[in-house]
């Protein structure tokens, strides 16, 4: 029987699908009986999803045109330097 501590240690492997069928079953047995661990797994899933959405939100923000201009400018100069 897994302890709550065991469950938290394997929590990422559970939500990422890295556990064997047997280990998943052991986890599910514990989660069915333990509200705390069930909430913890929910929090970790949310943490995973929020982390991803933060990156996606950042991607949607418009890029700094001046930064891009600076890169393209330097690229141009370095190409001329090569030639």
């Amino acid at each position, binding site marked *: 029987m897994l302890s709550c501590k065991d469950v938290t240690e394997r929590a990422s492997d559970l939500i990422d699908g890295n556990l064997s069928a047997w280990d998943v079953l052991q986890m599910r047995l514990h989660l069915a009986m333990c509200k705390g661990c069930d*909430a913890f797994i929910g929090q970790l899933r949310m943490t995973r*999803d*929020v982390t991803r*959405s*933060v990156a996606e939100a950042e991607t*949607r923000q418009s890029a700094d045109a001046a930064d891009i201009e600076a*890169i393209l400018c330097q690229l141009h100069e370095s190409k001329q330097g090569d030639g």
Partner: protein
Amino acid sequence: MSTNTQDEHRLVERLVAGDRAAFEQLYRKNNAAMVRMCTGFVRNHATAEELVQETWIAVLKNIGSFEGRSSLAGWIYTILLNKARSRLKRDGRQVSFDESGEDNGLQAAFDGRGRWKDIPELWEELTPERVVAGRSVLEHVNAAIEALPSAQRAVLILRGQQGMDAAEVCAILNINEGNMRVLLHRARLALRIALDRLQ
């Protein structure tokens, strides 16, 4: 060829052709993540920004020789890490790849038999939508990522945010898959604490 590989192939072709919009797309998806990851390694934001800019120039200059043996992102992050390594070597330092930060908020969470002392509660308020809607939540999460030790931060960014292949993440950071999973788990535990404070 999968849709992803096809999309990437097309993006590379546009980059080779000097398509500015294609570069903007690539830049938007990766620039902030690159700076954040690199700052962890070199411990200095301005140096990281400089190295990321050099990386972009190298990417555009050499895109014609990109052979697709790794993903485009994998290739870019490898260039970045190599630049970080040689800059630090030049300065007589090494890439800081620390894994400390053991205090993940669970050290004192359990009794002697491994049961919760304080039982976690469901987060009622938090959704990914709310994170995207509220700038302050976004900044809170980014600040928490920036507080992570460099190894955890790199794995969280590459695997947890950019969605890169596990094998590719391991190759870029020169770690094994078990190690990568532990680092990702620790990073999430730290972020969980940060998000818990928002409740």
